[in-house]
Each structure stands twice: as structure tokens, then as C-alpha cells.
């Protein structure tokens, strides 16, 4: 369905969006990119403040935008990959969802429905993180804008 479209890396899309809405979080995106999508996704689940011996102690969670953007973009990349290979194999694979490789690219352009879904996911994630609705909308709009604007893709 996107045979004539272009492919954008998940990390690249996230970096573009974060650069617009929370540029101070760019080192986080760089770090996640370096860590690899799989490792990053595994640890996101346990992300947040950790009680560790020899740590500084529990502090405020200040990284809020990157997880939302990463999660929304990864979600749409995953859904697209799934719909492309829907069938018995993918259903069986869903049973072992945790083992499934995290998609690293998003096939562009997205349909309006897909864009709407990404926006909805971003708003949901924002609400979960406790962001004010305006800030969530700003982030969601930035994601949609990035995914819709093919000319914004980096080389």
C-alpha cells in the first residue's frame, strides 16, 4: 500500500518532533537511538525513577515528551507492519508479542485515518503522563505534522 512512499526511521521522526516541542530532550533521543530500539522499548516499561543503592535518590521525573512521541510513532510503525502481514502467521506471532522485533521505520505517507489514530494515541499517552491537555495537543499536532510532511524528512 505504500510501495511508492518513503520510509522514515522511528528515531529520526521522534528526533524531529522532539526538536520542535522539547529541544532539551534531544540527548535522550540520541541516547535511545544509540541504545537500539529493542533495548529502549524493553526498558521503557521500567522507566522512571528507580530505587537503586548508590543512586542519588528518588527525584522528579522530568523526561516527559520523548516517551510520548516515541511510543506514538512506534505504535503506528508497528500497526502498519502488522496490517501489511496480517494473517495466520502474524496472529500466531501476536501470542508471543514480547518477542516480536520493534519496527524501526515508518512507511510514509500515512492515511488520514492512520494520522488520526497516531494523534489519538499521543493524546492518550500525554494524559497518562499527566500533561495538561494543551501540551498533549501540541505534541500530538507536532507528530501528525511531521508524519504528514514528507518534505520534512531528513536526508
Amino acid at each position, binding site marked *: 500500500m505504500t510501495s511508492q512512499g518513503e520510509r522514515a526511521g522511528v528515531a529520526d521522526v521522534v528526533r524531529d518532533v522532539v526538536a520542535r516541542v522539547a529541544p532539551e530532550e534531544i540527548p535522550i533521543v540520541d541516547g535511545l537511538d*544509540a541504545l537500539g530500539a529493542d533495548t529502549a522499548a524493553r526498558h521503557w516499561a521500567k522507566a522512571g525513577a528507580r530505587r537503586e543503592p548508590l543512586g542519588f535518590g528518588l527525584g522528579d521525573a522530568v523526561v516527559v515528551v520523548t516517551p510520548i512521541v516515541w511510543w506514538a510513532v512506534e505504535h503506528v510503525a508497528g500497526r502498519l507492519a502488522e496490517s501489511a502481514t496480517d494473517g495466520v502467521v502474524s496472529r500466531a506471532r501476536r501470542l508471543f508479542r514480547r518477542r516480536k522485533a520493534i519496527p524501526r521505520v515508518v512507511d510514509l505517507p500515512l492515511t488520514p485515518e492512520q494520522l488520526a489514530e497516531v494523534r489519538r494515541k499521543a493524546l492518550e499517552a500525554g494524559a497518562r503522563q499527566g500533561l495538561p491537555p494543551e501540551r498533549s495537543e501540541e505534541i500530538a499536532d507536532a507528530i501528525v505534522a511531521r508524519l504528514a510532511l514528507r518534505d520534512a524528512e531528513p536526508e
Partner: protein
Amino acid sequence: MSRVDERVLGPGTTVRFALLLVLLVVASVAPASDFASRTTESHSWACALAAGWDPDGGDLAEMAGLLSQPGPYESCLARHAPRPPWWLPLLGPVVLVAAATALFFAIAAWKARRVVPVRRVDRDGDLTRVLDDLVATAGLTRAPAFVVDPTATSTGAVVFGRDGRPVVSLHGGLLVRRHTDPARFRAVVLHELAHVRNRDITLTYATVALWRVFLALVLLPDTVWLVWQLVEGGSSPLRSSYLPSVTRGIVLAVVLVLLVHLARADVLRTREVHADLTALRWGADRRGWEVADTPSVGGAFAELWRTHPRWDLRRASLDDPAPLFGVRALPMFLTGVGAALIYGSAWQYLKHYRIAGWWADQVVALLASALVTGIAGIVLWRAVAHARLTNVDGPTGVRAGLWLGTGVLAGELVGGQNVIHSWVPARWWFLSLIVVAGVAFTWWIAQCARLWAGTWPGRTLRAPMLLVLAAGWVVLSAWFAWWRGGGALLVVGWPIDTDAMVAQFQRISPGTGPAWLVRDIAVAMPMVATVSKVPLLLVAVTLAWAVPLLAWTVRPGPLRWVREAVADAPEQLPQPLPPLRRVVLPGVLGGALAAVALLVGRDLPELEFVAATFVAATAAALLAALVAPSRHRLPVVLAAAQIAALCAIAVGALVRSWSVLSPMITPALALAAVLAVGIAVGRAAARRLRRRRSALSVSPPPHRVVPVRPRRAVVAVLATGSLLTAGVEITADAARPSGSLVPGPTPTASASSARVTRMQLAAWSAVGGHAILARVTSGTTCDAAATAARDAQAFFRVPDPRLRPLWNTVVTRSDRARTHCPTKPEIGLAWARAAAVAATALRAGLAAVHRGEDPVTTVPEPGDALGLAQWADQGARDLLSRFGTTSRRLFAYIDQVQGRIEPTTLTSHCAEVSRVGQDAQGFFRVSDPGVQERWDAFVKSSNEAGSRCTRSIADVDVAALRTALQEIQRLRRVAVCLENRIRGSVDSC
């Protein structure tokens, strides 16, 4: 005044980590041993039952029973419950440490998977520059590796790896805030670098790794096994006796979990505050700690489990590090529990493999007490130093000691010390002595710390602290080593009958003193032995008073360490000490009074003189303790009492000799020390009461400059004298044969229930009794009879007292078969047949008990009555001849010495007479009724006369001795008459 430097003394957290590590390693020995034992089926319970153990009889009866037949019990265990080789249990710690080491590195590798190097996120190199600056600020010679954890959203950081290769992981959130909140960034990074500088990393992760491995490999499997035993063992008839130990095992597992978690969290919290203060010293901004606490559920209880103190507490510590100098109850309690478990576990292993001895106990005690002294001692020293710096009353050490002692007590109970199958020891109230000892120890440490902190002119208190802690280490180890023996004696009781001990004492040293004194000494003997056998006891006593006395030898000068700890503190002059002569004189005068008493009584018999010296030494100590000065009360009173006791002993040794007094020297000096502590407590309590009534405080005497050289000479002479005494006694004790005065225990008479008796007899038959009786019954050759005799003699006596005469007959007759066989095989075989008859009767008796009937217990005659000539040939002639020789020797000795009887020699002659009588018991019957009647009377009388003779010497009863000798003289005539009858004379005797 500026803030007190928290580094005035070491934080003492390393030794607290060490306690956890040692505890886990030592605690893995017992489970490893258990697992190894489970590979073979163990029937130790059957051996115990065969030895006469009554599961309903209590620990003391069990000990008495097992101790009364140590040989058979040991060989039964070797056959039916073999111990794994000694090295096998030690594999537990080896495997544990190896697995923990692997996990230690795996944790670092695991943490490294979620991080990326800083350069990957540092596009412009600015972050690296800032970090380099901070490393330079911290003065670290080698920069740690910096990495970023992008999935961590908070503004924190963590350090992992090991001290040699630390890795500081910066959380993603910290990088986000770096530009907007640089104070926080610096504070966090400097805090982590402080952990690197304070060398926290290896110890922390080593504890984590060791604990996880211990949990997985030791604690969980062991607990599952215990729970399974608890459930499965429900139908066992021995369930009631095993329930306490199995339950204790499960409670121990829970206690270990709590102890390790609480102790580790506590140490980590302390280390966090130290790292905060180090970061602050390096220029971190206090705003870095402006973090709002999340509301915690559970309040103070929840706080105990956290590895970081609450933010408000951390901020408060930045201004005033007082919490780092506090003496808190929890660490003291946990230290006590840990030390008791370490000592208990190590000692159990040694005991299991029969390695336990007084020196082995002492070495294990040194290990446990090193940890306790390191932890409690440093805490108290820090508290005393802080109190001195802030001009407040320091801790007395009493509260700390209460918690420490309670911890040791709890550890003893959970570890199952001094109990076999009971829930608590029979005389559990004596366990309170542990708490008393804990208080005495911490009180002493606190008093010493106060003494030195007020007089030490050096730049740091480290030297006097190490000196006092080294002394405290030896003192505490002596206590632990004594408690293993003396404590057991108090809380369990003494399984040996006092009368038997008095008899034994009199047998070994007959006629040495009046009966009341002999009795008192025999009663005190077990306790005296537990005191005398602690190798380092006298060294500990000496150190307890001599080390504080060293403070008098220091040249007085301003306390420089105060200026080092608080930058702008005014110069502090040393605290005046009471004059040394006021400490020494009471001791010397007390000793002089005792010396006068001993000179008056110099002609007393030996035992009485030894007792008099003991009383004089302790009385002198008591007197000196009562009049010694009250400043620095405990060490001063201890010194005065010891000087007095030493003076008294020295005079006693000059009047008689050192070797005569040697057995009472250690007990006397130990008692003097205990009395001194008691007097010091009493005087302190009285002073407290007085102070409460009148608020008037006594001002210290004005400071005078006293020449220090004479003081040094006096202290050197006193300490050397005391240490020499300790050295001589240690050497003398090593040369003294161990346990020469401890008699074989007498089993306490127990009336077991019919059910228990059946179990005991079944076990007795199963572990070898049945086989031995079969061998005795079928022993038709001399070789077979000899083997059966040896086996029977080395085996348990039959547990049912009703059947015991039968068993004794089997043993006696088969032994006679064995002794006669080489020279007179026909007599030997006759005895073998007689033994078989008895064995058959015993088997019938066992079967009857098994059926629940009353057994027939009559001892069968050793065959048909013999003709006179045959009877004589079978051994009667030999016995009569032996009696003649023995009694002749006895009277020849009496004639020879002409009234100057040596009691020991005479006793051995009397015992020989008894022995002939015993050997003649149960002999073949003779067909001549007249001879048989005379023979029976002769055997009975010779037994009694021999015993009466022995007893009269012990009692120094001349009249009784004369009667006994007359009886032996009469029996000589009877023996001659019987010999004549054998030769064919028909004269009546």
C-alpha cells in the same frame, strides 16, 4: 561555631558490611552440611534412643544419657549416621562466594546493557568538559567511566561496577535539566563521585550479589526442606522433639531476611549522607538537594527499609551531621543478632567435627567479637567525640548495650544455642546475663572513649580508638568464649551428680581437706573450669584496666583533634584526671590487708591456704573497688580491684608457691573483675540518685601539671606484672591435663514411659544389640566368643533398667570367656556358654517388652553346679589366691609406712580388694552347699570391705578405716579356709 567534620573518625560502615558478608558466608556452612548429610540416611535418633534418650525427658537428661556412654554413641553415629567429610560443609561458602562473584560481575554487565557512552549524546563535547571539571574538583586520580541511561526519566544518577573500575550512569532526566538546573546537576554528579571516593561500590554490590545468591541457593531450598519436614513429620513418634528445631530453622530464615535487608538499608542510608557531605565539601550547591518528598506510607517503619534517607533528613544533615554520630537502637540490635548467629554457626560446625576446644572457641569468638567491637565501638566513639565537640553529655553506653545484648540474646534463641530438643534452655532466666554483659561492654567502651577524648592531644582520635577497640575486642572474645562453656553450664545445668563429683574428687585427692571445703570446691569446680579454660581471659582482664590507665601516661596538652574536627573551635585543654596514686593506692592497700591475713594463716593446710588466698584476693578487690575514685569510674575501679587481687596473689605465692595457687589465680582475678564492675554499677547508680536529689555538681579538681615519667613507670610495672601473670597461667593451663578432675557422668535415673521404653529397645536392637546377642549365643569357639565379648563391651548397655542385670551378666561372662580362652580354653568356653544362657534370657526379655508384657529379669545361673575340684579349676582357686596376694600387699604397706600413710597409695590397695570381690561375683556355682554359702558371703563382704576402706580414706575417718581393715583381715582367714577346703581339708572355717 562551624559544622563538625563528620570525618573526625571513620564512619564504621565498612565493618557493618563485613558483618553481613561474614554472616552469609558462615551461615551457609550448616545448610551445606545438612544437604550433604541428606545424601545418606541418618539414624542419629536411633543411636540416641539406644543410648537411653527419652524424647520426653528434656535436654539435660539427654545430655547426661549421651555423655554417660560416649564411646558406644560415637561408634553408633559413625555406623548409622556418618558425618560427611569435614571439607564438604565448607564447600557451601566456597560455592556461595564463587556464585556471588559471578553475579557481582553479571550485575555490572546487566546494568551496562541499558546505558550508552556519554559521547553518543554529547554532540558538542560540552557535557564531557563539565564532567571532567567535576572529576578534577573531586580530586579523583582516575576518572570513572560516564554513561547515560536514556530510559531513566528522573534527575538522578547511579554508580555501579567496582571500586577499581567505577561507572557513573547519568539518568536521562539529569541531562534534560543540566542547563536549567546546573546546581542539581553538579550536586548529583559530585554525590556519585563521592561514592567512588568513599569506595562504596564494591562492598555494596558484593553484598547485593552475595545476598541474592544466598537467598536462591541456601535460604529458599533450606526453608522449603524445613517446611516439608514440618508437614511430613506429622506422624513421627519423635515429632514433639524435632518440632522446636524445625520451627527455629524457619524462624531463622525469616530473621536472616529481615536482618540483611534492614542492616543493609541502614548502612546504605549512612553512606548516602556521607556522600552528600563529601559532595558538599567539594562545592556542591545545597539547592541540588531541594527535592520534594513523595508522601510515604508507613512512616518510620517504611523509612527503615529505604536505602536513602528522606530528602528533609538529608538536607538537615548537610547543616548538622549529628545523625551520623548518633547511637541508634536498630544497628546495635542487628549487630548483636548477627554476631550471635556467626559465632553460633561457626561453633556448631566445629562441634560437629569435634574440633571444638577452648582455643578453637577462642578463635571463633575473636572473629565474632571483632565485628561487634568494630561496629558498636566505632559508633560509641563517634558519639562520645561528637558530644565532646558540641559540649553535651555523651552516651553512657547503657542503652546501646541493652540493645546489643538483646540482639545477641535473640540470636542465641533463634540460632538454637544451648538447646537440643527444647524450645528454650531449661534455666532460660540466666540468658539475661547476655544483656548484662552487653551493657558492661558498651559502658566500658563509652567510658574509655570519654577518658581518651578528654585527654588525647593528637590531631586525630584514631590511635586511642584503635587501642581501646583492640582491647575491647579481646575482652568481648573472652566473654563469648566463656559463655560457650560457662553460659551453657548456667542455662542448661550440670548433668553430673554433685555427690559423684565429690566422691571422684576424694578418690583422686583423698584426705586433702575438711569435707565441707572439699564439697564446696567440687560444687564450684565446673564453673571454675569454664573460667580457667578461656585462654585469653586474663589477657582480657589486664587490657580492660591497663589500656584506660595508659591515658595517665600521656603528656597533657591542648586537644588538637578538636581543632581538626571543628575549624573555628577554641583551644581545648585536657580534662584533669584523678591523681594516679589515688587509683593505685586503694589497690595496694587492699592487697596489703590481704597479705597480712595470708601471713597470719601461712601454716594452713594446702587446700585451705589456696581457698584462703582466693577469698583474700577477692575481698581485697572488693575493698579497693569501694574506695577507688569516682571519676572515670569503671576503668578506675577495675584497675584498683585488679591491683589489690594481684598483690594478694603475689604475697600468697611468696608464702607458698605459685604452682600451689595456680588453679585459683584465673578464677580469683576474673571474680575480682566481675565484682569491680558490679561495684562500679552500684556506685554509679547511687551517684545518679544523689544527683537527682541535689542539683549541686562537683566541679572537677583544678588542673595541675604532673610529671609524666613516674606515671609511665608505675603503669608499665603494673601492666607488665598483670600480663606476666596471664602468660604464666596460659602456659600452666596448657600443661595441665585437661579434665583430670571431671569424673565420668552419672546418668540421671529416668522412668521412661512404656512407649518410650519400647522405642528405646527397638532402636537398641536395630543399631547392633540384636546382632551382638546373636553372636554371644552362637559363640561356640574361643575366637567367636572373644569377638562377641569385645563387641558387647563396646556397645550401649540395654536402655531398660529392668533388663540391665541380664545385659551386665552377658558382658561379664563373655569377657571372662575372652580372658580365659588364651590360657585355659575349656574354662573360657564354659564362660562363653554361660554368657549364651544370659543372652538367651535377655532376648526373651526384649521380646516380652516388645509384646507389652513384663519381662523375666532373673539372671540364670552360669550352668549347673560344678564339683569342688572342677569349680576350683574353673577359677575359684585363682580368685582366692588373688585376694590373698592383694590383702597381703595392703597390710605389708601399712606395716612398712608405720602410720605415715599416703592416702592415694592406700586407696589404690583398697580398690584392688574391691576389684577381686567384683570379679568373683556371678561365678560358677559349686555343688558343695557349705562351700557355696561361704563363697557367697566372702564375695559380698570383700566387695563391701574394699568400698568402705576407700570411702573412709576420702572422709579422713580413722575409725571407719580401722573397721574396714579388720574386716579384710577376717576375709583373709576365710579365703585361706576356702583354699584349704579346695585342697581337700574338711576343717570347718
